[in-house]
């Protein structure tokens, strides 16, 4: 029942996640503290939201390498606007999200109209958007003190906390709730709308999709636009989380986002996977990232181990795919 495993990959991943968390809580007493957990999950939520957008793009058999630059640029622009102008905070946030949408649409245009392969196109915009970031920054940074009072608080705040007798639950971080909402909305749209279904069709076999009348180019454009918008949201949240922003903020994040998507079970070849998986992948990697130092893994080994974990996760996935292909070939008559 190899194919069954693929379907319930999200369940498997969640189980591994819980196991890892349990292991960490035993070995590293600092892990289960409220402060630590809120910090970890809040950051993972930012990655998760970006990962949902990236998953949409990867589903259509494309890739977006520029998400880190979009996040960085949006974060910096929002912060700058709040620092230098008297824009109300929600307006600044809306501006940031809108900027992300526009950057995503630009990617979409380059890929669908100019027919540039997405890996090349977004490699280019990765630099262009980062360049814009440096231009806007002009050597300056934005510090928390420049921003409205209590700007970074939401990153630490939780909802639904309670204290009952001796048992206390500090609540779910706001960022996590946001991420859950995003995953739910996008996930349901993918599963329960015609357009969502068409994402999978285009990623699985764009030629055949065109035969039955699916507008492949429109679908891909939509994917990139949504990815940009979600990266915009992630950018806004990044600004809140960190408070201090540089032109180079979020550099290198693209690989983390893509790793989250792939670890979460979305096939890089397109056509299969879920956004829930991508979000769980983000949480999983966020946890690993947080735990390794807590488990007293030496500083020098951190990046290595982190990379190794990603490789193992993806190799297991590849192995399962190979096995299911073989089973398919055996059952199919040649």
């Amino acid at each position, binding site marked *: 029942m190899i194919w069954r495993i693929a*379907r319930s990959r999200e369940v498997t991943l969640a189980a591994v996640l819980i196991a890892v968390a349990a292991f960490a809580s035993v070995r590293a007493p600092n892990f289960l503290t409220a402060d630590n957990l809120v910090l970890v999950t809040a950051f993972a939520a930012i990655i998760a939201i970006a990962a949902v957008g990236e998953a949409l793009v990867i589903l259509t058999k494309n890739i977006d390498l520029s998400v880190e630059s979009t996040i960085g640029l949006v974060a910096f622009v929002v912060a700058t606007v709040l620092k230098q102008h008297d824009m109300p905070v929600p307006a600044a946030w809306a501006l940031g999200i809108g900027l992300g949408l526009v950057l995503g649409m630009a990617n979409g245009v380059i890929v669908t109209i100019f027919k540039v392969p997405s890996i090349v196109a977004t490699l280019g915009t990765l630099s262009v958007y980062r360049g814009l970031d440096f231009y806007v920054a002009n050597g300056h940074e934005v510090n928390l003190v420049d921003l409205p009072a209590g700007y970074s608080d939401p990153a630490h705040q939780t909802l639904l906390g309670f204290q009952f007798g001796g048992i206390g639950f500090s609540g779910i971080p706001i960022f996590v709730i946001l991420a859950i909402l995003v995953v739910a909305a996008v996930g349901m749209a993918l599963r329960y709308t015609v357009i969502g*279904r*068409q994402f999978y069709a285009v990623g*699985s076999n764009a030629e*055949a999709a065109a035969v039955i009348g699916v507008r492949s180019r429109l679908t891909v454009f939509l994917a990139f636009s949504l990815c940009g918008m979600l990266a915009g949201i992630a950018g806004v949240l990044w600004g809140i989380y960190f408070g201090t922003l540089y032109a180079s903020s979020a550099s290198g994040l693209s690989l983390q986002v893509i790793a989250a998507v792939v670890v979460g079970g979305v096939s890089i070849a397109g056509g299969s996977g879920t956004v829930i998986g991508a979000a769980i992948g983000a949480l999983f990697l966020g946890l690993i990232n947080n735990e390794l130092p807590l488990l007293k893994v030496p500083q020098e080994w951190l990046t290595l181990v982190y990379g190794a974990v990603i490789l193992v996760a993806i190799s297991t996935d590849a192995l399962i795919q190979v096995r299911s292909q073989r089973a398919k070939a055996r*059952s*199919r*008559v*040649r």
Partner: protein
Amino acid sequence: MTQSKPSPSESNAASPGVIPPVALSGVSKRFGATQALADVSLALLPGEVHGLVGENGAGKSTIVKVLAGIHQPDSGAVLLDGKPVLLHGPAQARSLGIAVVHQEPRLFPDLTVAENVFMGHTPKGSLGSVNWREMVRSSDRIFESLSVQIDPTAVVRGLSMADQQLIEIAKALSVEARVLVLDEPTASLSAHEVERLFAIVRQTRDRGVAVLFVSHRLEEVFQLCERATVLRDGRHVITAPTTELTAPDLVRHMVGRAVTMFPRSHAQIGDMLLEVRGLTRLGAFRDISFSVHAGEIVGLAGLVGAGRTEVARVLFGLDRADSGEVLFAGKRVSFKTPSEALGAGIAYVPEDRHLDGLVSSFSIAENVTLPILPRLFPRLFTRKNTERDLAADYVGQLRIRSTGVDELVEALSGGNQQKVVIAKWLATKPKVLILDEPTRGVDIGAKAEVHRIISDLAAAGLGIVLISSELPEVLAMSDRILVLHEGRIETEIPRAEATEERVMFAATGQNAEEIVSGA
């Protein structure tokens, strides 16, 4: 050789003393449920062109692939100079002197001619680096010996099919081949290019190389070959000198089998649904005219490359015709895209599995509803139950064996996947359904079921065009059979008068008179 009794081909060898450089001895090969070859023996002699004929699926390609080292026989062996060898792969086969030119040239379009000719055995210089000058010089020499003009430094991309094939032959000759296997080499060549090819083959033969010439075109076999072998259903039928055979003989050996009857309920023939008049697409087919009525199954028979799939593609809007007209329900139509064709009521189940578009990560229900999603759910949101019910309908109708409509299609067997494909196109509620090799690669049991389905569909009033290379299938299912040959309709045969031989004659372009006079 380890055989106890001489097989027919070996007893037909030119002289008992000559050990064939290459021979197949009792080779059998099975793919899944299909027995591609059963106990086939064949000996190739030096200085001789040996023709290999048989209808589609007879096993010709499998023999070529076994010789090329691509497939290993399940039983029996490939003999080199009388000794059995196990060919692990094409590189080894080539190094042993077996050169194969496949149907489709497998060149690297971005590399030069010389690089392609010497791919795998590039002449090396003193430090192990590539000796470009030697490569170009040797290529020049080979082309000269073939009396052709091809620039070894030219990039392969953009060269004509005929030139690409010559490069493949040069590739073969660059390794001092003892055996040259040509698989349907003339399929895409003009008459002039065929002549050029034949001259080269004769030259090669005269140099002592053993040549195996696989072809559908019987007249070429007679022109070029000294001996010929006929295969049928994976078995060896006969090997004889071409002087002792006639074309009708070959055809008779290719087909002669009992025709099994498939379930066919006779339907009421209704209105004319589709009419094709003088349809032409340059390079593919010419002046095609036929009609399809409700309840009718029109069979399109012919050899590979006859143009049947090309006609279907034009009818479905995948390609455009250059002239002629198509009338659907009396109105002139010209579909620019398949969606237009689907909207009008024509569906095409492609032979090319890639176009199937079965999304492997989707369930049966999701695949079946894919083409009609916008129609089914005009308000954007899908409803699982609607989908499931629709799919369950087809699962029942087509008897698709699964654990339920939510099962992923990748878990189904080949035959059932094929049924899902048919269900998917049926869901678009077509009036005319074109099926292109619907039972290829499907096992016997599922095959009969697919035939039943097709029969039921006709009974329900659909007009069906059945493209098939399997003569028994075409004969049993069709009300009328149109035989295409080289892009034209050679003849139309009503059900009552259809026999395998008549179809095969037409498919190979034999004149009607020959049938009457040729025994």
